[in-house]
């Protein structure tokens, strides 16, 4: 544990209307509900924690196997297992509230109504700083098409959520689309306060011996260093297309990785799969960033945001 979890000079950033003491968050679904890693991570040291995705009712998730390793990455098909809104508010949120860090609740639903109910249920709740809307969930009513892969559905959903809650809305985009910037712009127009990307890339792995997919679900979401170049590119394309801030993620392990996202235009970054490899990945990244800006004499990390030089010298 870092002895002094106070705000570090030069690292605080504004993001989607909230102030983060530093630009490092724990990514949704890779940090549980925040309490599981209490022995390894002092939550006071993080910019924020994004919870596992919350739906209106508890969900039991997919049958195992739910994960499989791939070259420099992993596929997961957890099936959005979660305790549901009520248990989250009762059993999980109080713990998170005990720390000086931002709490962002990741939400999803299988219909516009479910999304709205979760957003409304978190509206006004003390200790919830923002909502991250996972739009990679299939719209069951619209025949299973993901909200996040149809610009019109996305726009409609965000507009409605914007009216259902007083919390800042961060829209977490699916990378499984053609032009990511179109979706970011749609979210922005619909009132999003920030964009978060990337979620996992849909993938599949087959075991030639059993001739079955290695995940019981068939396909799953690819995360980890393998997707980092894709994520950096999408952050870069998105940051140039919208005015609202971007939270970048996808395969971040080290300070260098995080800097790629920040230079590409991310105002903050989230650490996902890296936490599985190193439970202290997120706090180590905060410390690494602190050392980096000190060593390089950079007065404030915000100076680096979008700082990639793409023209000729």
């Amino acid at each position, binding site marked *: 544990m870092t002895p002094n979890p106070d705000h570090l000079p030069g690292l605080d950033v504004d993001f989607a209307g909230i102030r983060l003491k530093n630009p490092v968050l724990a990514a949704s679904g890779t940090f549980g509900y925040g309490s599981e890693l209490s022995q390894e991570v002092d939550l006071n040291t993080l910019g924020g924690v994004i919870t596992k995705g919350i739906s209106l009712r508890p969900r*039991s998730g997919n049958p195992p196997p739910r*994960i*499989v*390793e791939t070259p420099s990455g992993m596929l997961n098909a957890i099936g959005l*297992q979660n305790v549901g809104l009520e248990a989250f508010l009762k059993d999980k949120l109080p713990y998170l509230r005990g720390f000086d860090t931002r709490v962002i609740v990741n939400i999803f639903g299988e219909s516009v109504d479910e999304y709205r109910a979760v957003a409304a249920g978190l509206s006004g709740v003390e200790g919830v700083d923002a909502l991250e809307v996972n739009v990679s969930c299939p719209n069951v009513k619209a025949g299973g098409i993901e909200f996040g892969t149809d610009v019109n559905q996305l726009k409609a959903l965000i507009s409605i959520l914007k009216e259902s809650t007083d919390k800042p809305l961060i829209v977490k985009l699916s990378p499984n689309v053609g032009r990511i910037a179109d979706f970011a712009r749609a979210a922005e127009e619909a009132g999003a306060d920030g964009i978060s990307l990337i979620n996992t890339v849909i993938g599949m792995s087959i075991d030639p011996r059993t001739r079955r997919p290695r995940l019981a679900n068939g396909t799953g979401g690819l995360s*980890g*260093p393998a997707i980092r170049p894709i994520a950096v590119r999408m952050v870069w394309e998105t940051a140039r297309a919208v005015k609202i801030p971007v939270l970048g993620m996808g395969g971040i*392990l080290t300070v260098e990785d995080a800097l790629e996202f920040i230079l590409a235009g991310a105002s903050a970054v989230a650490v996902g799969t890296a*936490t599985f*490899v190193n439970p202290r990945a997120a706090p180590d990244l905060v410390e690494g960033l602190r050392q980096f800006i000190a060593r390089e004499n950079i007065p404030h990390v915000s100076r680096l945001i979008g700082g990639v030089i793409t023209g000729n010298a």
Partner: protein
Amino acid sequence: MRTHRAEIRERRDRTGPYRSLVLDAPALAEAARPGQFVMIRVSDTTDPLLRRPFSLFRADGPAGTAEILFRIMGRGTSMLDRLQPGEKVDVVGPLGKPFPSLPMDEIVLVGGGVGIPPLFFYAEWIRGREPARNVHVLMGGRTKGDLVAREEFERLGIEVQAATDDGSAGHAGVVTDLLRPFLGPSHAILACGPAPMLKAVSEMATKSKTKCCVSVEERMACGLGVCMGCAVPVRSEGEARSYRLACTDGPVFDAEEVLW
């Protein structure tokens, strides 16, 4: 703090594809209880990316060492096998819930292959603390080489009854063939091994009203309860499906709870 940078004190080639490593990790050795496991990073590159789970085979608090015993299965375990004394590995642990304390006089350990390590740790633990208890070991495997740590059990004064598929040692057949005499309310079974074996043991235990705990193996990404990857289907009232997490709710479960 459960993260350790442990120096390898000793490595041993055991029978067949089995190996063991003694790790210098005082905090881990102190905290570890039988049934718990560790997550080891086998490479500092991103391929393979994830840690590998291994049960604790032994932990010596005063000496500050913890030991694992593993079978070379694929890439990760092959990399682990290449490590030499003096080199360091990243270890997270102890993780998971240990075997519960049980009041029964007759403790029956049933396992095979990579299921043996947690059972041995339990045997050594109970021998040191409650020497009055009777510990029985029923060990199964495909062949003689799978009867790992047999001498270690015997050195504790515990008799090992063995069964091998190919008859190369002990009874020719499966380990559950040996289980019948050890059923009943004065017995408690602790089992660890392949799922079909655990299922068979569980069924015999349930029918005979014998208390039974199983330690299950499920693919794990984090080992810490944050990824929800290691779902174990369990019985539940009402709901269609219900899962618990092998890494934090287990790996030890009451046999009655698991849905095979």
